[in-house]
């Protein structure tokens, strides 16, 4: 069914195929699948930002190295993925906490922009280390979810066909589980209370005896674990893995976090979905925007949010009494 053909006039610059239902649904599904990965990256950004007030630009690269480790352990050594993936996540959590304690905390005490430079430096270093150890050629990643061409539910037979891959559903379920566990941890445990108290008022948190430094390490550990998970899922989605796996994804994650307000967990999830949909629908709708411009869309989202609503959709505007 082509809706465009029912219109009495032609719409310039608009892709005809956009008015086919199957095609649009397929784009939405693709957008929401990528969006779930962006949401995970946005969650990592938010978890670090809420307590420390800074962004970890190396979050994506930390995920990439975790994902490459999974590849080495499982594909090269034959260890099953259900061991290698949790092991890589656990290891990256430890590394995240150690990096926070040894590199970020001493620099942060001196104030200023030091932390931003440290995380940017980490970004470049980890990226280079990945290339040195694993080489620059893409490899076939570990796929925790079924990844054959036929592993999908066909919902509307085509052409054009509308189908949902099993792996896409797997990514959505993973995101839901991560959000659920995070909610339980933050809202229902003593550790989570300590984390939220530090986010709300760091000095008062110290004054009731909460070890603030350890809560900052906890934030980095959680973010690193989620980042590695995001990288594993994204490599399954693209079917190819190299040292640049997450270089663009972190930008989409930052856009999603900005959209959600930088300090809101639901905001990160909705932000991820919106950024994924924008990335998938806008280039398809306007034929003059090629898919190579899709990264620009992420930057447009960031700038638009900062201009129109700096606190994001779900963020709270900071009220300071003087």
């Amino acid at each position, binding site marked *: 069914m082509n809706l465009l053909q029912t219109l009495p006039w032609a719409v310039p610059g608009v892709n005809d195929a956009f008015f086919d239902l199957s095609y649009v649904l397929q784009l939405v599904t693709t957008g929401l699948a990528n969006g779930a990965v962006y949401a995970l990256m946005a969650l990592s950004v938010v978890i670090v930002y809420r307590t420390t007030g800074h962004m970890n630009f190396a979050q994506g690269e930390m995920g990439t190295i975790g994902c490459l480790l999974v590849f080495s352990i499982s594909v090269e050594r034959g260890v099953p993925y259900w061991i290698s993936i949790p092991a890589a996540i656990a290891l990256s959590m430890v590394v995240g906490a150690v990096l926070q304690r040894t590199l970020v905390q001493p620099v942060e*005490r001196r104030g200023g922009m030091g932390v931003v430079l440290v995380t940017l430096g980490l970004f470049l270093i980890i990226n280079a280390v990945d290339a040195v150890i694993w080489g620059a050629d893409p490899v076939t990643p570990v796929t925790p979810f079924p990844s054959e061409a036929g592993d999908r539910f066909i919902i509307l037979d085509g052409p054009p066909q509308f189908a949902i891959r099993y792996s896409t559903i797997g990514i959505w379920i993973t995101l839901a589980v991560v959000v659920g566990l995070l909610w339980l941890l933050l809202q229902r445990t*003593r550790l989570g*209370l*300590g984390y*939220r*108290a530090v*986010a*709300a*008022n760091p*000095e*008062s*948190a*110290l*004054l*009731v*005896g*909460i*070890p*603030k430094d350890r809560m900052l390490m906890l934030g980095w550990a959680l973010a690193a674990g989620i980042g590695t998970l995001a990288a594993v899922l994204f490599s399954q989605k693209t079917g190819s893995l190299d040292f640049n796996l997450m270089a663009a994804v972190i930008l989409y994650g930052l856009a999603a976090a900005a959209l959600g307000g930088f300090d809101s967990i639901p905001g990160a999830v909705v932000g991820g979905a919106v950024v994924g949909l924008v990335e998938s629908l806008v280039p398809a709708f306007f034929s003059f925007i090629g898919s190579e411009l899709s990264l620009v869309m992420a930057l447009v989202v960031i700038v638009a949010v900062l201009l129109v609503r700096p606190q994001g959709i779900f963020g*709270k505007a900071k009220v300071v009494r003087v």
Partner: protein
Amino acid sequence: MTLLTVEGLEASYGPVRVLHGIDLTVERGEVVVLLGANGAGKTTTLRALCQLPGLSTSGRVDFDGRSLVGCRTEEVVRRGIAHVPQGRGTFPELSVEENLDAGAYLRRDRREVRQDIERWYDTFPRLADRRHQSAGTLSGGEQQMLAVARACLSRPQLLLLDEPSLGLAPLVIQHLFEIFAELNRSDGTTILVVEQNATLALSIATRAYVIESGQIVLTGPAAELHHDDGVRRAYLGF
């Protein structure tokens, strides 16, 4: 018995020296008030006692027979000091109940914490009505009640109060100071309070110190300072 001994306490924010050798003692069971003008160093004294980061300190601070110098703030709290900071310092995004739970962060006796929280709800029924509201929505008086209750949930031996009357209505102030006197009388909590309102503070205190430009310039029993005309004119402004 002496609970807190401070000798030659110096403190600086970066290159700026704020305290130039504070000497004071607090006996167990006392209410001691620290008076002084704006900028004299009252708040800094309390912050230095808690070893808050951002402040470099030197000198002797002994609490309950052991030194606090170089401890982390969480360790100071664990040792039995609770601090109600100036401007309340509640956790605005957390509910009233979560604020109180956070106050008991270091305690493991969950049942007794529950009982303590209920007791504070009896003391401040307005907090009980708002227990699921976020603390940021409370009025100034309610926030101060919450801050006091939160500090007391760590079951401190020494309670530090920084300008508890600031910006509050007279009736609320009166209620709070009754609670402080009651805490001291029945729970035996030792209190060190910083106040601008000298008359009010001297009315519940046993002893007072007057601080000027980062040094103690005067000390004595509260009643004496309260009635000495020369002292009142020179230091207390009433």
